[in-house]
């Protein structure tokens, strides 16, 4: 694309294809291309400057939540109870991400606890317990089958408050956003957290799989309303998927992306960087 002279019509088409193939989506791509073309017409930009401007457009979309009041640096507040509710549809990487977060927390000297609130899926509790063991973090679970997940959360908060825990990670069952009863269950979990730990620092994070297509926006809209989301974690970026739907999620819901999951190992989680994301998106 980058050659001599202004950005050609072919080059614009190529950029459009790249965005579409990265799951940015038709509407978001149209908006981005329109913004790019307006700038090019106004300032007769040569190709390399046009690409630089495109990256700026994309980074601005991703950074806008920070201009709207979200802090850029994201870490639990020391010395108080922080509760991070981890939610999302089935199979996106919630439990694995909690394993990774527990590791970072203990490495950074936080007292950490995990609530195993997926009481439904086969071996869900066993899975999160193994993750807890890997960073020496205790997992609060209820032994009975099909226990109410809200009860586990309630007990875990009680334990966290009693022990002076600094970070309580709440693992929840995967749930599709069109299942009204499951979204009600998530609302109830959020209510319990607000009620029993009203003075805690609460974060509600949606885990999005980078391989996800346009349904990701719908997921975010429904989960935002049910769980009062405060951020997004984007997983599986070690694959070939670019996670472009995250742009629409950030743009339409104003939520910041907090972490990137890039692998199945305990260390494969890093803070989100809009620069890194945009470079990878356009590569």
């Amino acid at each position, binding site marked *: 694309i980058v050659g001599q002279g202004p950005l050609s019509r072919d080059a614009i088409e190529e950029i459009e294809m790249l965005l579409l193939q990265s*799951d940015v*989506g038709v509407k978001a791509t149209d908006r981005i291309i329109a913004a790019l073309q307006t700038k090019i017409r106004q300032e007769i930009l040569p190709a390399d400057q046009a690409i630089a401007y495109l990256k700026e457009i994309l980074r601005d979309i991703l950074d806008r939540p920070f201009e709207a009041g979200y802090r850029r640096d994201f870490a639990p507040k020391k010395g108080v109870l922080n509760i991070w509710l981890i939610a999302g549809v089935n*199979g996106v990487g919630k439990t694995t991400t909690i*394993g990774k977060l527990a590791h970072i927390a203990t490495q950074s000297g936080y007292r950490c606890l995990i609530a195993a609130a997926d009481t439904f*899926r086969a071996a869900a509790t*066993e899975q999160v317990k193994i993750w807890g063991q890997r960073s020496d973090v205790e997992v609060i679970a209820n032994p009975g089958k099909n226990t109410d997940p809200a009860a586990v959360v309630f007990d875990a908060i009680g334990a966290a408050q009693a022990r002076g825990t600094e970070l309580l990670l709440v693992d929840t069952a995967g749930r599709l956003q069109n299942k009204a009863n499951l979204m009600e269950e998530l609302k109830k979990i959020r209510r319990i957290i607000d009620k029993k730990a009203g003075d805690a620092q609460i974060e509600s994070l949606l885990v999005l799989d980078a391989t996800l*297509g346009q*349904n990701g926006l719908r997921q975010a809209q429904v989960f935002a309303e049910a769980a009062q989301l405060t951020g997004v974690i984007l997983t599986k970026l070690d694959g070939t998927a670019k996670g*472009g739907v995250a742009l629409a999620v950030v743009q339409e819901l104003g939520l910041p992306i907090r972490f990137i999951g890039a692998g199945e190992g305990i260390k494969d989680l890093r803070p989100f960087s809009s620069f890194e994301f945009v470079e990878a998106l356009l590569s």
Partner: protein
Amino acid sequence: ALAERLESAWKTLRGQDKITENNIQEALREVRRALLEADVNLQVAKDFIENVRQRAIGAEVIAGVRPDQQFIKIVYDALVEVMGESHSPLAHGEPPPTIILMAGLQGTGKTTATAKLALHLRKERRSTLLVATDVYRPAAIDQLITLGRQIDVPVFEMGTAVSPVEIARQGVAKAKELGVDTVIIDTAGRLQIDAEMMAELAAIKDAVQPHETLLVVDAMTGQEAANLTRAFHEQVGITGAILTKLDGDTRGGAALSVRQVSGQPIKFIGVGEKVEALQPFYPDRLASRILG
């Protein structure tokens, strides 16, 4: 929906007696937009549009039928045809056991589908043995054992310290010994760009020579559905696919990508988390869903 969009694109066709290269352009663009919004891969969508264009050009505009509705029918029929057969049966090896290998990316629903297939086979009076070769994911073997117990189907496992190839091999030997009709081998999720893991999958396939290799794909997969299908098909070879989580509200364009890239049938769809939630694939239903 596509119907409303085509209505306006179709004003140019009123009073025409043929669908031509010119009057179809805008309509084709609308179809392309609809397919992209439904997560059909861009290249797959382009190829499909070309297919539609060729079917539509020269078609007589049927008197009494609105051109946009006629065009939608052309698109719908083309999509149904590409989506392939309904009720494409599972392989049935002679002599038994039939060997089925499950494959796919992380978190797509392979382990759940393994148990769902076993329950489905029981309805056809076919006994099953499940084999747990995911030695990587924490409690993956526990998960399959728990599911097996729920449906009273035996699970063969050798813990997490044995190679998946060896577990698969011994699992098939066990199936022969038990005289079961079918053995289903669950595998770990893997990236198609992970050379080592793809080699492992190819080695499992080589060792057990399955009658059926099923790619398990999440219905909400975006553009990468085409690329991952191509990689799995070229490096391992698949004989069919299972599309999961269709109880969600995603349009499911990944189905068209999987089908067009591999040429293999989508045999089943997952429509829920419970073990009973498996249905045969109906191309017309998925076609309507993709077109919105």
